[in-house]
């Protein structure tokens, strides 16, 4: 799963406090600036990481804001590979939640008010995977940076 042939770009240990996630994502954005992600890709990466980190804070850690999260980012072919590690509760059933494909051509009263998070994660991330290793949750995915595709 891990591709170690390239150097680590970003490695952070931080607390499961949603108020701090914006700053963390900003730090990652700066760390990968040299890979020339375009604006569209930066928006996608921000959306993706915000949903993953919020999910850890809300579900794995049951809204406790002082538990450890680790984010590791490597440069890999055509983009980056990210590992997000926490020590909270296992994913239900030990697997990634499915994307819920809501029918949106319904009455206003039947529109979904939630369940968008995993749909966003599954749409944006490539090669998304999850493993329970010891007492930790390891979520890993790849993210394409178009500038690198033609150069790697």
């Amino acid at each position, binding site marked *: 799963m891990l591709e170690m042939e390239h150097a680590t770009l970003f490695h952070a240990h931080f607390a499961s406090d949603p108020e701090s996630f914006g700053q963390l994502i900003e730090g990652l954005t700066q760390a990968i600036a040299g890979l020339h992600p375009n604006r569209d890709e930066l*928006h*996608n990466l921000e959306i993706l990481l915000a949903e993953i980190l*919020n999910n850890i804070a809300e579900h794995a850690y049951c809204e406790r804001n002082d538990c450890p999260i680790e984010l590791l980012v490597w440069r890999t072919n055509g983009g980056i590979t990210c590992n997000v590690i926490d020590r909270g509760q296992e994913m239900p059933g030990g697997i990634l939640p499915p994307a819920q494909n809501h029918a949106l051509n319904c009455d206003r009263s039947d*529109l979904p008010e939630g369940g968008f*998070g995993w749909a966003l994660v599954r749409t944006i991330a490539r090669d998304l995977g999850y493993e329970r290793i010891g007492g930790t949750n390891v979520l890993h995915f790849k993210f394409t940076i178009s500038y690198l595709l033609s150069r790697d």
Partner: protein
Amino acid sequence: MELIRQDFGDAALITVHGKRIDAAGAIHFKDQMRAHIQGGPARIILDLGEVEFVDSSGLGAIVTSMKQLANHQVLELATLRGAVEKVFHLTRMDSVFTIHADSGAAISDLRKTG
């Protein structure tokens, strides 16, 4: 985050003053929207021009607001930027709302109808 409302006849323009509608602010947003919607005019336009980021909780809060409308009311959106526009597009919620490209157009439209 503050929501400021301007009335134009049978329509209202609600401007969100704040950079994020996310898990931390979703309940506050919903409470403010409910206050504006109840007994409010038929058309309600939500201007998101100042908002830089909406996560899945924020998106859910906007949908909740839409579901709190009375039968004769509609909720439209204006000025979706960057990552906000992306979230609506990726979840296909841009097919559910009428979206105005900018609040100026929405307002002149309001003045015509209002």
